[in-house]
């Protein structure tokens, strides 16, 4: 059974990565077509760095993705704790609201948000309200549900006595959160943040309607290339981005692994002498 599962998981990963391989190979192709490899070249990478238009857009995308996932994580974690403390009926109500952005087709969310922003703009008498802020707000809005949905289960898994104990020992609620709760729900927070980051980095439909002409993100720009074929330098950008994200994720993983080792050591120490709980 085990070898079957192993092989099968390998196949699943292969399935997920085949298109990446295809695009990475295409970035070294001398021809423009993805489906036929004509010769090896690094020219597309040179073209990418010579032409200054795409890299700033990528930087914009990363800025929005990082900021929006950070904001959504903070806001969403707080919300999840609030929701966790709610009664069943209000909890159900809030969770229904949380599901709305997920069920609404993106284009509808995009257009309705754009209309809302434009309306606020006319109230404030600004005719170019669309820009970095509106883009960030929209991204936070569609990121929030993912954070909440990944933090809530961790909260319900947590032993409520832990927090009570911390409070009894003289912690302020904030200290109790900082010293106890966050450690318990950290995996949920991290996966929520990662999810939010990924959603935000690749969004083009909602972004399309709420971006401002002074702050364009990469997926929006790529989506506009419909009249002409994609220039192969896009594939080079794709490959580079893939490598960068891979590196960041591996780095985060290693750091987290180190943290966990410390934590495990601390836990062992704690178990050794329970009275040494300090506040």
């Amino acid at each position, binding site marked *: 059974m085990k070898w079957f599962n192993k092989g099968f998981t390998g196949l699943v990963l292969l399935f997920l990565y085949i298109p990446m391989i295809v695009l990475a190979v295409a970035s070294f192709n001398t021809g423009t*077509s993805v489906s036929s490899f004509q010769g090896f070249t690094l020219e597309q990478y040179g073209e990418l760095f010579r*032409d200054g238009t795409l890299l700033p857009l990528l930087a914009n995308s990363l*800025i929005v993705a990082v900021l929006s996932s950070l904001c959504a994580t903070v806001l969403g974690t707080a919300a999840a704790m609030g929701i966790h403390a709610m009664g069943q009926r209000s909890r159900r109500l809030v969770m229904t609201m949380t599901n709305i952005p997920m069920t609404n087709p993106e284009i509808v969310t995009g257009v309705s948000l754009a209309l809302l922003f434009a309306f606020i703009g006319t109230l404030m008498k600004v005719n170019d*309200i669309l820009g970095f802020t509106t883009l960030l707000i929209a991204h936070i809005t569609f990121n929030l549900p993912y954070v909440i949905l990944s933090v809530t289960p961790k909260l319900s898994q947590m032993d409520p006595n832990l927090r009570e104990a911390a409070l009894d020992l003289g912690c302020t609620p904030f200290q109790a959160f900082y010293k106890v709760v966050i450690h318990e729900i950290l995996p949920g927070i991290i996966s929520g943040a990662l999810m939010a980051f990924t959603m935000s980095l690749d969004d083009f439909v909602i972004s399309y309607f709420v971006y401002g002409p*002074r702050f364009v993100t990469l997926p929006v720009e790529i989506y506009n290339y419909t009249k*002409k074929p994609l220039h192969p330098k896009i594939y080079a950008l794709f490959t580079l981005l893939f490598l960068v994200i891979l590196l960041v994720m591996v780095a985060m993983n290693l750091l987290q692994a180190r943290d966990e080792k410390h934590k495990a050591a601390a836990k062992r120490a704690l178990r050794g002498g329970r009275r040494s709980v300090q506040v």
Partner: protein
Amino acid sequence: MKSMKKFLAFLCAAVLLCACLPLSAGAEPVTITVYNWGQYISDGTDGYIDVNAAFTEATGIEVNYVTFDSNETMYTRLKTGGSSYDVIIPSDYMIGRLIAEDMLEELNFDNIPNYQYIDEAYKNTSYDPENKYSVPYTWGTVGIIYNTKYVDEADVGSWDLLWNEKYSGKILMFDNPRDAFAAAEQLLGIDINTESSEDLRAAAEKLAEQQPLVQQYVMDQIYDKMQNEEAWAAPYYAGDYLMMVEENPDLAFSFPKEGFNLFIDAMCIPKGCQNKEAAEAYINFLCDPEICAQNLEYLGYSAPSTAAREYMDPESASNPIAYPSEDILALGESFNYLPTEVNQEMDSLWLEVKTGSLSPESGGSQNMALYIAIAAVVVLVVVFLLIRGSQKKKKANRGTH
């Protein structure tokens, strides 16, 4: 935990730094926002001119360049508001619409002296009869691109090539109702700007006839599919054909004898523009024959000015596809702006064509579908209630144990 926090702090700092950079860099000079089709300007790729950089160098005005994927999304963004643009480059019929809805500024031609180089043929157009709002950027024709290896020359020359059963499954078609209907209307001898329901329905029926033969309704993918011979015949723009033929020399282009669409994409200034004079300077710059020549040589579309053609490589300036003879050009027809109701009717017919559900007479089927819908909802609700009931029972059982 600590290293994780440090890492996050570092990440935040890096991001904030990046966010601040563009702010401090672009403080003083005048900036205009240009809104154009994606990949529709020479941007320095493959050794061609970088038009926007050249403009900044010549005038000191910075260009903030943004793109759209279709006339309609551009319109949606202009209409919903919330952002302002200085120069937009839509197509003919969309300009007509924008003029009708009073969304464009009148141009001050004193600031656009290079307008003199624009040929008379592209002035006094049907969408802007008094030349008050727009300056042509490019023009081009729609025709049929086919692969000479597979398509018999005898079948070429008319729109009916795209209806030819011999090439079933190897035909591509436009994935937008306006261009697709125009092809069918021209084949049927109907005016491409028709607003009559019967005409639209006739065209839709013609397109429905074609639907089983069509491999796919596509736009940008025409390039890939024609170049690697996945498809053999497709209608598209002449300028794009010239690019495709460089990759696959077996491709050829034909002007359908029934007539074809001749489009003009033109530069306009929308209402709410922040810096009209700078915008006009930009339009003027793009009309400069030398710039225009270099830009369009990269784009492959045709130049609206004879003066510009003189700066081009003579071979491309006299290319019979890009600059067809007077006789052929006489067959070209341009799109006018259609009222919203006509567009909506065309769009719903188009959907029926694509799904293969074009009904001879709407009404009967509509009611039928509604009944089915209601029935489906009822079934769902019943299932829902049943499941809930059984669930409750289960819970009750659990309780008794």
